[in-house]
Every structure is written in C-alpha cells, then in structure tokens.
C-alpha cells in the first residue's frame, strides 16, 4: 500500500505541520517497498503517522544512486563549490530552524526549546565548520630518495553508509553528513525507524540547496533489515554507526562477511564523573546534574556513574538533589519551560523502570525519584541511586535513562580504578580545583573525552569518540576527516638524468 508522501500531523499545542514520509533517493521522495512503520509521539503514546521503509531493493537503489553520482558528478565538483553548497544548506537550516526543532521535539520527545537551541543550532554550526574543511584537505609530498617524487592524496571513499540513532535525530545526522560531504563522499543514511521524520525535512533542504541528485540519500527502516542490507552492501565503502554496542558488533560482523568496508562505531558508555574533595561542590553538582539528565539520560556519553570522595559525599548529594529539583522540569515538549520530556518509547521506558527495580534489589538506595511521572507518555522521574558499588549492574550496564548511580571513594587512585573498571570508555569528568589532580586524572582515565569542571561541553572543532567497547573512530574536529578519506601514495620514479 502506498500512502502519499506528504502527511499532515497535529502537535500537542494544536498546530498542524506537514511531513514527508517517503524515502529520499536521488533527490526524489519515493515510496519504499518495505513495510509501513508507525512512528509514535512519546509524549502522548499516540501514532503521529506512518512512514515508508526501505527493503533490500530500495537500499540497492539508494546505494546505486550514490555510486553513480560519485563517479559521474560529485567527485568532479570543486571543493570550494562543495563548501558553498554545505554553507547554503546551513543557511536554509537557519531559515527553517523552528520547523526542524518541531520535528525533533515531536518525534523524539525532547523539549522544543532544547531542540531549537542545542540540537538544531549545533547541527547548523557543524555544517558550517565542515564546509570550511572542504578545500583544505591536504596530502603531503614526502622526500624519499632523490630519484623519486612521492606524494599522498587524501581521497574520498566514495559511497558512505550511515546508521544513526534516535536520541539526537538531526544532530547525529549532521555529525555524519558534514564531514562525509566535506571530504567528497556520497551518502546513504538510514535513520532510526523510531525518529524518521526530521531527516526528511532536512532532505528537502538538501534538494533546495542545489546538491546534485544522489549525493545525499536518506532512508529508514528496521536495523535488522534495512540497516543490515546497508552494512552488507558491496558498493558501500564505509559504515558509520552510532547506537548500541550490541548492534555495533553486528555492523562489524557484517563488514567482515561482505566487503571489509571501513568502520566507525560510536557505541554505548557508562561514563564516570569524579568529584574530588577540593572541588567547588555546588558547581560540580550543577554540571553533574546536566551530565546525567540532559536529553533525559539518553546520551551515549551520559555521566551515569558519579564517584564522590567520602568526605564530601553527603554535602554533594544534597547539592545534587537541590540542582535536580531546580533544573528538571518535566513536561510536554512544547511547553516553554520543559527541561525533560518523555523517554523515547515504551520499550525504553520499560527497560529503564526495570533497571530501577534491579538497582533496588542490588541494595542501592533510591535517594530521589524512582518512578514513572504522570500517567500518559513515557515519562520517568530523574532518579538518584546512592550506596552503590561498582559491581552492581546499575554501575556497569548502560541504562540510557534519567538514572544515576552514586558511589563513594577514599583515594584518587581508587576513583581512577573504579572509573576504568568498565568495558566502556566514552567520556568522563573530574571536578577539582587542583591543577595536578586535573592533569593526572585526565591522563589516567581510559576514555575518549575527559571534561574538567564541566560536562557535555561540545565544540565542532574538538574530536569525540570512544576507547574500548565504546567504539572507535572520531567524530567532529579535523580528526573526523580521516574517517571519511583514504590515503593513496603516488611514487614516481625518474632517473636523475633526463
């Protein structure tokens, strides 16, 4: 059954908007051959609308569109022109900032003000940042022996596949699209079937900006079908995946059995926030609060373990709860003062509540929250567990919700050991006023990002990516360009006589 591409949906504030529901392939919206998938409004638990999904035929069509475009068109476009197009896209996103934010808030449940001021704003900045790299990707000339001329070229990969999650729909897309485009690739992106709507609005802007057909292709579908076809496709040179560690393994396996495509995995985390005795406790508590409760705890880099020096534990806990109360206003995403909206889905909602039960059974103490909020929508109270130790499941497994586990430590060495006692290594923080402690701890913790006296501070120009089973490869910053280029060395032999 084919539904029309454009569907009208109603927001909780009564406003109506129009959304695309077809796949975006070769600059056209086309119905897929996969099943229609319902996308749910997590604030109301009601269906927003259905979208078409991509089956293997559609994935093929998208990949072939990208491959043809790369070969015939995109790789011949001058870098400065690529930069111009990416900047134009950013201009259009700025123009339609509110509409993009509405879609993020509607489909994901995050507060509209947060979507507008963080997600969309940072996405626009991401495109502008990488536009500036397009004509600055340099190889080197390398002196070897006198009779050779050697140089490297940093070439585009060709067709890049991307699978992105539902937690920051527009921003996760930007983190993949921007460097991939700047480095000269064509892309097929599978959005999460839970949040398919925002990317299609973005797709319309891609077309309006003037990108040649086939540079950007956006499809949706289930991971185990659509995602699987993409990660196994022989014409896709690289997969960039953000999501769970479990699915990351599948993507890696898929590459190993198909064409050994290059990989970039951005997976889960259980990041530790270390609060030292000499920290500014009130500041630390405020940052730590955002560190776990931002985005309703649905961040791979969430600071979901807090390790506090025993001498300041009680004081810190009091301040942490004080900030939680002040900061976290739960409500409908379209209410002006909402900070925390609902969790993304019933499945996640159930999973988080289950972890809260597990925590209680393990002997941790609920010092704040611990329950559902309201009786409609997947809302969960910000929840604080104390009396934790690092062998508890709630200290080891990623909950992906507004649940933090707080434990004590005696010495800084102990804190470092606890923090490192994890299969994950995505981010972390240390709160201290002492210079030596700051440098020592950040040197010792095995993670990809260490924040000092802050959390969740992102810039387009600094890299982000995990150690250990939090994944590999970097997003953002100049480092990310390496993920989207391949290096060829050219070695010309000439004799010293002509």
């Amino acid at each position, binding site marked *: 059954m084919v539904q029309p591409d454009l569907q009208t949906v109603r927001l909780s504030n009564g406003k109506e908007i129009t959304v695309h529901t077809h796949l975006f392939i070769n600059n056209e919206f086309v119905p897929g051959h996969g099943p229609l998938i319902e996308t749910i409004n997590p604030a109301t638990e009601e269906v927003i609308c259905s979208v078409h999904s991509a089956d293997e035929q559609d994935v093929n069509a998208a990949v072939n569109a990208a491959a043809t475009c790369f070969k015939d068109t995109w790789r011949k476009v001058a*870098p*400065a022109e690529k*930069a*111009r197009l990416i*900047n134009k896209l950013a201009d259009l996103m700025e123009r339609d900032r509110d509409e993009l934010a509405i879609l993020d808030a509607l489909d994901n449940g995050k507060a509209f003000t947060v979507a507008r001021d963080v997600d969309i704003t940072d996405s626009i*900045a991401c495109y*502008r*940042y990488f*536009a*500036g*790299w*397009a*004509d*600055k990707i*340099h190889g080197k000339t390398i002196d070897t022996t006198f009779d050779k*001329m050697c140089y490297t070229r940093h070439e585009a990969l060709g067709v890049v596949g991307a699978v992105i999650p539902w937690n920051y729909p527009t921003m996760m897309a930007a983190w993949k699209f921007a460097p991939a485009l700047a480095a000269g690739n064509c892309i097929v992106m599978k959005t999460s079937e839970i949040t398919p709507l925002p990317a299609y609005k973005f797709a319309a802007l891609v077309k309006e900006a003037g990108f040649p057909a086939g540079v950007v292709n956006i499809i949706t579908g289930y991971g185990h079908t659509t995602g699987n076809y993409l990660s196994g496709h022989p014409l896709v040179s690289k997969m960039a995946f953000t999501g769970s560690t479990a699915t990351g393994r599948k993507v890696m396996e898929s590459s190993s059995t198909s064409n050994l495509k290059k990989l970039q995995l951005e997976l889960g985390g259980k990041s530790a926030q270390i609060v030292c005795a000499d920290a500014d406790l009130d500041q630390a508590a405020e940052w730590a609060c955002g560190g776990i409760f931002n985005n309703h705890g649905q961040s791979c880099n969430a600071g979901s373990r807090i390790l506090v020096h025993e001498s300041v534990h009680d004081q810190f806990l009091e301040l942490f709860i004080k900030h939680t109360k002040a900061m976290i206003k739960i409500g409908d995403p379209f209410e002006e003062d909402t900070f925390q909206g609902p969790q993304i889905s019933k499945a996640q909602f159930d999973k988080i509540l289950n972890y809260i039960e597990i925590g209680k059974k393990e002997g941790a103490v609920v010092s704040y929250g611990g329950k559902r909020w309201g009786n409609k929508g997947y809302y969960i109270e910000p929840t604080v567990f104390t009396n934790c130790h690092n062998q508890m499941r709630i200290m080891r497994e990623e909950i992906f919700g507004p649940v933090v586990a707080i434990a004590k430590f005696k010495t800084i060495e102990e804190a470092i050991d606890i923090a490192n006692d994890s299969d994950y290594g995505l981010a972390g923080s240390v709160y201290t006023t002492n*210079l*030596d402690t700051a*440098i*020592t701890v950040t040197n010792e913790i095995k993670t990809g990002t260490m924040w000092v006296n802050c959390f969740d501070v992102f810039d*387009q*120009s600094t890299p982000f990516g995990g150690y250990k089973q939090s994944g590999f490869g970097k997003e953002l910053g*100049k480092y990310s360009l390496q993920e989207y280029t391949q290096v060829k060395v050219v070695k*010309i032999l*000439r*004799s*010293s006589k*002509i």
Partner: protein
Amino acid sequence: MSLTTEFTTTDGYKLTLNTGLFINNEFIEGSSTIETVNPSTGQVITAVQAAGEKEVDLAVEAAHKAYYGGWKTSNPRERARLMNKLADLVDRDMDELAHIETLDNGKPLTDAKSFDVPGLAAQLRYFAGCTDKVHGKVIETQGKLSYTIHEPIGVCGGIIPWNFPLAMLSWKIAPALAMSNTVVIKTSELTPLSALRFASLVVEAGFPPGVINIITGYGHITGDLLARHNRVSKIAFTGSTAVGRLIMKAAAETNLKKVTLELGGKSPNIIFDDVENLDEAVFWSRLGIYMNAGQVCCAGSRIYVQEGIYDQFIEKFKALAASGTVGNPYDEKTIQGPQISERQFDRVMGYIETGKSEGATCLLGGNRVGDAGYFIEPTIFTDVTPKMKIMQEEIFGPVVAISKFKDVDDVIEMAHDTDYGLAAAVFTSSLKRAITVSNRLEAGTVWVNCYNQISENTPFGGYKQSGNGRENSVYALDNYTQIKAVKINIGL
C-alpha cells in the same frame, strides 16, 4: 567637507565614490589630498584624503583598541560569520566594485569581473573557513604537560600595490582577520578607490570598529609611518624589491616588527621541444606576459624556447600577441588596458628604448597606442643576451624577451641568472622532465603547462629577492600567528 563624490564612467555607469580615510568604521579627512587619475584617459577622477602622521596614529590606535577590546578573544565562528557576510556583500556589489577597479586601474572590465572581484570574495570565504581550525600541538615531555598555542600577533599593517587593488587587499586582510589580528591597510595612492568602496561593505557586514582600517598616501610618507609604527606588530608588503628593502630597514630601525615581503620577479617561462601542443604553450605564454598589461609580479617576462621549435614558436607567439585588442577597458573585446600611470608608461617606454640601444631586436610593438591614456603595444624582443637590462630588470609592462636554448642544463643556468625567484613555468609532455625541472627551478611557484594559475588555496611567494613568506592557503596563516609554548610541571 564631503567625503564622497559622484562619477559616471565612460560606459555610462554611475558611481558614488568614497574619498575619505576609513578608520574605526568611519570615513574621515586626512592631512592632505592626492588626485587619482584614470589611466585610460589620463584625466583626474577625483581627489582622495591622504594620511599623515596624525591619521596613521589614529588608525593604529583604532586597530589596537579593537584588538584588545574583543577581537583578539573573539569567537572564531563569529569571525567566520562576518567574513562570509562580507564575501556575500562583495558578490552582491560585484558589478560596482569591478567598475571602480577598471576606472582606477585600467584593467579590462571582463578581468575585474572574472578574476579580481571574485578573487576577493573567494579569499574571504577560504579564510573564513580557517578561523576555527587553528591547532597547536601537545608534545610528549617528561614530567610535564607541554603544548603550543597559535596566537594572533596584534595590529598588522599591510601596504598593497596598484596592480590588483582588491585582490591584494584580500590577500592581506583575510588571513590576518582569520587569526584574529586587526589590520591597517595602506592602499596605493594610484588606486585608492575600490578599497574605499569595499570599506562601506565592512561596515554593512557588521565588523566592529577598528578591526579593518583602510588609508592611503604616498609610500615614502604614509607607508613609512606605518612600517615604523611601534604599535604595529607586523607589516606585509607587496611591491617593488627596492621598497621592500626600505620596509625591512624601517622594521629593523624601530620595533623589529615581523616582515613579509612579496616583491618583484623576472620569471622564466621555459618551452621544451617535446611540448604536446605548441598552440597551447603559446596561449599560456601570452597570458603569462601580457595579462594585466604586464603589471604582474610573477609575469613570465623571459621566455626560453628550445632551439628545435624556436622559429615556430616565434611565428605563432608574434601572431597571437599582435591579435589582441589594446584599448578601452570597458569594451568586451579588449584584452589589454593601459599602464597604470604616466610614470610607469615612461618607465616601460624607457626600457623599450634601452632594449633597442643594447642591441636587442624589437620584433613586435614598442610603440604607444593612441594618444590618450597610457597604452603600450604588446612588445617582443629577441636576440637578447643574459646581461641586458631588459633581461635582468623588472620592466612591469607588456614587454617580453625571448631567447633560444639548447638543453636543460643550459636553460636552467640561464633561468637562474637573476636575483629574483618568484615564479617559473615549464612546457613539456615528458613526465620526468616536468618533475625534474620543476624540482630544480629556484622559484616559489612553478607552473607546468600553464601560467598565472593562482588561487586562494595554494601558497604564493618568492625565493631569493622576490621576497619571503607565503600568501594564500593555510600557509599564509603562519605570517599572522605567533607560537607560545606552555609547559606545566606535573611531576618534575
């Protein structure tokens, strides 16, 4: 007093020209005025304000205040936004800027529209993309956390020439601004007008006052004041080697400000007998010397042709050189406008006379064109010897000297018989020859099978007495950066 004036060009285009000094986002009076002449007609266009000591001080103070008042620590994204906005405004006013450029400089309007003004916008955009991509390093050291920071320098002065007024302006300001320096630019008193129009766009784009200041005046007065100013931390100069020496001397005698120089050239253009397509080599060679009426620092003003194809080359080159229209720059057919001024005209004509008197053969041209404006025919000298003045000295006009050569060692020796080293070109179809010869040539840019291919993203600058430092591309950022090393004790 009015600091604008109305002017209508000979092709009927109406212009409102700014004539003040642009300091602190305002146009002000100077200590004196200088008349600027239309080189196509020899007629005065208007008088502009010139900066004396008082105004140079004002400009430098404005730049200093703006630097410490927020520009030094400005958000890179904001700098990028302003520079991109400025580029957008340049695009919007392309037609007007191109007309002013042609009026004041005499270059064909088609050149101004296809190269000069787009080049200004491209430069701004390229460096706008650099603002948030400047990285230091973390360097492993025992017991220490050591890292470098790449910081701006401060108030940067720029003294620019008259041959590509807007392009030269952009080469100086774009990398400086990207690195969060503030600038004081002295334009050539021969071509002050286009930069002053651009100054209005600086205000419209929203740059804070004092970040960009544009003044004009004579080199030996205004330029000297800027080069000697103790609050100017760096000076970038493009112009003659003779004046370059004075700038360096001025810096040495005052605050040892950092100096980069982009000076003259006498670039060799070498045509081997295995060139794939002689017509193409002729096309590029002609562009190499006659573009901008020969008023290009990297002009291929010495052509060396391997003996086997010499006669053929001469015949084709002479025919092509003679075929272009020299005249009214507003005419689409025109490919060569006038020389910039009466003085330059006399100088070039003087070199032509010298060439003849030294015994070279004037194969083509050598005469004035028309009797108004400073037009000179495309001129060719042959039968030249290496020590002739026309082979050693920069003429800066539409005059080329063509020699024969036997083999590669012979021609490279001749190519190097110069104090300059700005550019060079090699025409050949042989891969080995292309690479080997370009490796051997002592020049900052070597073109293979082309000429005058200059863009914002590849570096440009000279070897030897053609200058020091590189402009364009990320290399240019080095000129506007100073490096601080920070070393924190964590366990010594």
